[in-house]
């Protein structure tokens, strides 16, 4: 491409702008790692919580401590990725990252306020998760993830009618269908 030797006509200028904007847009990376990693971590936590409840363990919620190393692994993976790949970030990628960090922050604090919401922690987190999943699917233009968000919404509503023990099972199934399946489909697309 020449720098300034060539005189541009107004139409050429507009064509060039359009071509470059098209190059830049839709450049969102499909990174399935987080969907698969968190899908499995959360399924293990929910099933673990269900089993510990069944065997009358005093602290069934202790299994949720696995999300702490989960956060660390995610953070390390993210910072490694940004070092390895070129640092082109689209606005939508930033929106997607912010969306999931916001969701993670909500999911991390809600359990501490369980007493204020009648311990309906699972349905609330699934409902907030449905918003994040549908939006993420829209950002990636990936229909299975958008459908996954709908599964979260339905699973979240169903949980309101169930005991906390069964909620763990419903949540695990919801995450498997709504999060893990789209995650594997996303991976297979690469």
């Amino acid at each position, binding site marked *: *491409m020449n720098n300034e030797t060539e005189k541009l006509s107004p139409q050429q*200028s507009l064509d060039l702008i359009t071509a470059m904007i098209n190059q830049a*847009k839709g450049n969102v990376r499909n990174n399935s790692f987080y969907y698969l990693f968190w899908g499995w971590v959360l399924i293990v936590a929910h099933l673990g919580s269900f089993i510990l409840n069944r065997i009358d363990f005093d602290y069934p919620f202790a299994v949720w401590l696995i999300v702490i190393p989960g956060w660390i692994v995610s953070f390390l993976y993210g910072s490694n990725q940004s070092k390895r790949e070129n*640092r082109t*970030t*689209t*606005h939508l990628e930033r929106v997607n990252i912010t969306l999931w960090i916001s969701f993670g922050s909500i999911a991390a604090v809600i359990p501490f306020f369980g007493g204020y919401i009648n311990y309906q922690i699972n349905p609330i987190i699934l409902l907030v998760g449905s918003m994040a999943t549908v939006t993420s699917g829209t950002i990636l233009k990936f229909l299975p993830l958008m459908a996954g968000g709908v599964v979260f919404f339905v699973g979240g509503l169903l949980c309101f009618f169930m005991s906390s023990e069964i909620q763990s099972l419903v949540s695990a199934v919801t995450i498997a269908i709504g999060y893990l399946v789209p995650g594997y489909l996303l991976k297979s697309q690469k």
Partner: protein
Amino acid sequence: MFKELDPLLHSQLRLAIMSLLLGLDSADFTFLKEKTNSTAGNISVQLDKLSEAGYISIEKSFNGKKPLTTCKITKKGIKAFEDYVNSLKTYIKN
């Protein structure tokens, strides 16, 4: 009446760089070089000109031992780009 086109933007490579950056949050040197299909020397000169005008900001860092140049469009750059497009419209209409 024709508005004068910003000479800094009315150049093929600089206009391409600005159009790319407009759609991105940030972009590194290699990406801009590939997308504009230009040489490292040429793009480097144009980035400096845009940076001197305050249209883009350039951050230099290192990825291990490899130098990394990251560019972002500034508010002044967005305004200049919008003015440029508005001026173009008057040419197209007439």
